[in-house]
């Protein structure tokens, strides 16, 4: 059932559902919010991994950012990953 549903969703919306979302206790509400967030974000998949990280973060933490802000944030994350950083000072 979960498999058929997620396959349907993946084909229809061209998004990959994280297993976490289905593994815990999925509700129509949180799955659809996730999809909406994903679609509202951007689907330029060449941007790859850090875009997913940013989208995941925004979703989990209830943040609302514009497309431009998301792109900028994405750049920042990429830069931090390259240069390294300190999280406790």
């Amino acid at each position: 059932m979960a498999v058929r549903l997620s396959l349907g969703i993946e084909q229809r919306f061209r998004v990959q559902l994280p297993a976490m979302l289905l593994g815990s206790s999925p509700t129509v509400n949180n799955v659809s919010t996730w999809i909406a967030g994903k679609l509202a974000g951007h689907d330029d998949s060449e941007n790859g991994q850090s875009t997913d990280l940013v989208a995941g973060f925004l979703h989990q933490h209830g943040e609302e950012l514009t497309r431009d802000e998301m792109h900028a944030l994405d750049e920042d994350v990429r830069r931090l990953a390259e240069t390294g950083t300190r999280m406790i000072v």
Partner: protein
Amino acid sequence: MNKTDTTMQKTQLIDRILGRKAGMASTETALPASTHPKNRARIPDAYTRFDRHPGYEKMLVPKAASERLGIANPFFRVHDGVAGAITRIQDREYINFSNYNYLGLTGHPAVNQAAKAAIDRYGTSASASRLVAGERPVQRKLEEALANVYEVDDCIVFVSGHATNVSTIGYLFGPKDLVIHDSLIHNSVLQGIQLSGATRRSFQHNDTNALNQILAEIRGQFERVLIVVEGLYSMDGDICDLPPLIEIKRRHKAFLMVDEAHSLGVLGKTGKGIREHFDIQGKDVDIWMGTLSKTLAGCGGYIAGERALVEHLKYAAPGFVYSVGVAPSLAAASLEALRIMQKEPERVTRLQAQGQQFLEAMHSLGINTGLAQGYAVIPAIIGSSLKAARLSNQFFEAGINVQPIIHPAVEEKAARLRFFLSFLHTDQHISYTREVTKKLMGNR
């Protein structure tokens, strides 16, 4: 899309779901059989670097976001002295709502004195596991005193509250068992269940009907069943409904474990926790768990219950057998703190009054305090993590230290500021905090 495509996708999807779920268990078989150069080249760089660990990469996002938005890191602030109702951070005094000094016993002269005397007598370490390195009388005295609080046979003290849950649940239960817990249960319980290999189920927060229903359906499939709840929920400030839980655990022949980390010193007329609050026999709960780090001004955790439970854990729970005994100074501090709690119940009474007063102050401003019932833990629910962090910084500028709590410590999009009340907070602290809250959050 043709039929084979779909089948393939289906298999991939199933693999993905199973792969993630199986998680740690499957890593052993996933390791390449040989480290032949050809195979070595195939191992992705990310598997060999901590800065490419997915957990770490994920942390870069809030880091980047807070830099971009100019939000200073509210975590790991450095305090210069005893943290009570007041604390010193970088040469400035703050009204402090970020500690567990519920009854003002951390830093209490008598508690400090007890710890010092224990150091003079035993030094600073118990050096090894009590099983082999032997006992210090103060460790036993603390356990006896705690067993008395619950009016049960015996008690075992571990070196950490978190490890207490991990080791106790992880050791006592196994793959044929079920552990069912409240949906807001503390991480240490979840880790314990994972370690145990038992089936894990959760029931909607404080919904005893749901719990009853699930057990009615699936109890028969398992050998031992453990129900785990908290006395006072640490992120939300509401309490569990203990009487029906006891009835349910009897009906379904399950064990009941209550985590009293935040209830001791906070609930009940004299601070004995949820048991006293509901006037329940200690024996009606199978496993009482608590920590020394909050009301008891120390560091460590405990399990209190029947002798067969406690002595079994003392000979077998890995977190006890293969870990050092609690430092005598910490045991002495907690023992003295427990004595003061019992000698001076007015501390508890005052803390409860402060909690109610604080809750009313927040309500009068229309602040969303979620499920809080006015027992020392009172959240102001914000939703967005960045907003919560920014607000925490604004409070800080106004001289108030209150921490934001964000996912994964709480559910997604449920970030909050969490106010911990202490017996030491004065009416002025609360009214000043109300004023600042009004200014910062008044019109939400």
